[in-house]
């Protein structure tokens, strides 16, 4: 029973995340963060030390394709979900009574 309720929470979380990713890729994808705007105004430049494989949440060569971005976003969300689970299992109390 409790496991079913926890599964339900997980399902709601996954569905909500997919909605967030879809809305984010289709309608709210344009990013102009305050920090970027402040940096531009003050002439500061970033100097990336690490070349991220998926810069700006896009696959190089397939930029601007919303469907690809959505699939990538959902994949990354599921990766975070999986890693959180593994981390939680590794960090939880060892013995429960």
């Amino acid at each position: 029973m409790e496991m079913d309720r926890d599964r339900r929470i997980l399902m709601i979380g996954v569905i909500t995340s997919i909605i967030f990713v879809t809305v984010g890729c289709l309608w709210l994808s344009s990013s102009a963060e305050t920090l970027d705007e402040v940096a531009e105004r003050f002439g500061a430049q970033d100097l990336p030390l690490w070349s991220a494989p998926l810069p700006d949440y896009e696959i190089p060569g397939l930029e601007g394709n919303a469907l690809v971005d959505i699939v990538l976003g959902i994949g990354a969300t599921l990766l975070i979900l999986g890693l959180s689970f593994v981390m939680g299992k590794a960090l939880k109390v060892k013995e429960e009574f």
Partner: protein
Amino acid sequence: MHIPDGFLDIPICIITYLAVIVFWAFALRKMKKVLSERHIPLMATLTAMFFAAQMMNYPIIGGTTAHLLGGPILAIALGPYAGLISMTLILFIQALLFGDGGITTLGANVLNMGVIGVFIPYFIFLLSLKIMKGRRGIVVGAFLGGLVGDVLAAVFAGLELGLSTLSFPYSIQIAVTAMSIHHFFIGVGEGIVTVMIVSILLKQRPDLLKLPKVAPIRLDLPYISKDSKGC
């Protein structure tokens, strides 16, 4: 608010990493004592949800955009130590895979969004519950926690930028003012979303909010009952 590589001087990067390592050590120690099997689905769900939520950029003032951080909800639902670890995972994946935030500045980003943006909302929520009883305390605490947490995280980012005189040649006052004014509006959105999610959890799954918090100070919600109608 993700600071990229090159915006902060090396000493600031080192100091922020050292500060965050201390918090990570306390967080991992506390999690091994408190985190149970029951926390894990909620922790995984909220971490994934706020990673996804950070992909939605909504317009605010002056042609800039903002996104939710999620720190306040992670703090209230799981406790700030668990919230810090969740936020660290989000920021690490964002920097490593997507180039959103730097590697040398990961310590600063975790300090701003994972420590300030998580612990401050938690303590404001606690304070609000002590001052105001019942639903009002929950609503006011969740809203102010979201608002103040976001603004203070931005103030810290501004301080780090302002102190980085070699990389970011502008005064602390300019950097802090520029960051905090915009983040006030972001904080209002964060506060509203925090109230909404806490209300939904109270109504649908009050048992999840009753889970022990991975926190330095206990959070009790004694008035939550099966008959709770939420906020």
